[in-house]
């Protein structure tokens, strides 16, 4: 799995879970919060993406993550 593939999955879930947002708008150096996500939305996006990518990372390990890109890096570490 590549980082690009992971980002694609995360972006897809952002689009599914957040209102009024365009795919081209999403900058991976930003936080989902910048696009109006609340903490429940973020949990939803993260969980759906992990499910789809078939990885499982304890939420405690995700506490320090700030941007979409960092999230993708973390996923990549755990992907086979």
């Amino acid at each position: 799995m590549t980082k690009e593939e992971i980002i694609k999955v995360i972006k897809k879930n952002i689009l599914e879970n957040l209102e009024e947002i365009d795919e081209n708008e999403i900058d991976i150096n930003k936080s989902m919060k910048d696009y109006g996500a609340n903490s429940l939305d973020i949990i939803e996006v993260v969980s759906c993406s992990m499910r789809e990518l078939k990885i499982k990372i304890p939420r405690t390990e995700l506490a320090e993550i700030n941007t979409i890109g960092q999230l993708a890096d973390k996923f990549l570490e755990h992907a086979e």
Partner: protein
Amino acid sequence: MKNALSFSLADFFFNDSPDVLSPPSDFEEWMNDPRTQECFGFFEQQLLSAPKSSTEILSNLEGKPKKVINLTSYNYLGLSFHPEVIQAAIEGLQKYGLGASGAPLLSGTLDLHAKFARMLADFKQKEDCILFSSGLAGNLGIMQGILRKGDLLVLDEKCHKSVIDGGTLSGARMQFFDHNDTEHLAQILDKNKDKRILVAVDGVYSMDGDLPNLPEIVKICDLFPDVRIYIDEAHSTLIFGANGRGVAEYFGLEDKIGISFGTLSKSFGGVGGFVCSNAKIIRYLKGYASSYSFSCASSPPVVAGLIKALEIATRDSTLRDKLWENTHYFKKNLQDLKLDLGNTESQVIPIIIGSSGELLFEMARDVQKKGLFLLPIDFPAVPATSRRFRISVSSQLTKDEIDKACNIIEDSIAKRLKKK
């Protein structure tokens, strides 16, 4: 499971097993891991007697009854076992029986319920009051009853789960502002001028014991004529303010609170929830809060006991004064031990340990073995970087009990933190 301790309940929400009555397969594996079991052993330990400041539990650690000093029950004023409350509940039970046998809108409203709701409205100096059979039901009911799809619920990120669940049920959009960050709040309000907005804060935040920055929050909300404020005074009613009306009274801002929630399970010593506001919205709420209209009215002996509890707590300030005396004494002793108590300003006192779950549970075992009922609070209930213990101070604690408790806390917690 190789790293059972890094997982938490936050990690098993989604369930891929085809049978809805089977939990996720890795959940079972996690649950059955001895390390997980050890942590869960602290949950659902049975109390063998009333939640008094000294009581007895069936200790899961030792597998037998154990006498403990109780720092966990939120029986802040000890009203659940006050002799006058018990007597009133007995009389209520004898006169009305155990159940109300009806939803409040139909046959469930007894004269007791009407009397108590009136007393609570007068106490909170609001026009009217609606009773619920639990605090959680009250919060679900308010949010679902007054907010609609398209509305915006703006909450402090540390608001209680019942408020969030109420928001979800209502279909309103939710935006969280960083804890007590009024600039962030202002930004959100500014961006959403076209929406109907309710701003939600707690009177005392339940995991931290700190207060909302109400003066600033009110100032900001005042800039927006239609923004209304909701306050959850679950842990502050009967405790804060010159008359015990809560944190809004304490700050002198009661007239700025649109809708005020309280629970009857904490300082009141019973069970139930109540919401006070203007008479028109309460009447409307009764029609649309499902947890009110589609649920049986609360148990008559409980309401009879609660009427007495309110009388006792407001006829003078004895219990409240004692609670504050105990809180100050306890806090001073804990500060002398150089423990991190966060920003507590109330009878809810956290002892923040940090990010190590192992250390938290090691301390928790030791604390309980030494005779203290003080439970660990772990992620996701609190951030993974600030796992903690949480003390609920009670007016019933004696100086001797507090001293003994502090000695155990010093041995089991403070000394381990120093070693680190």
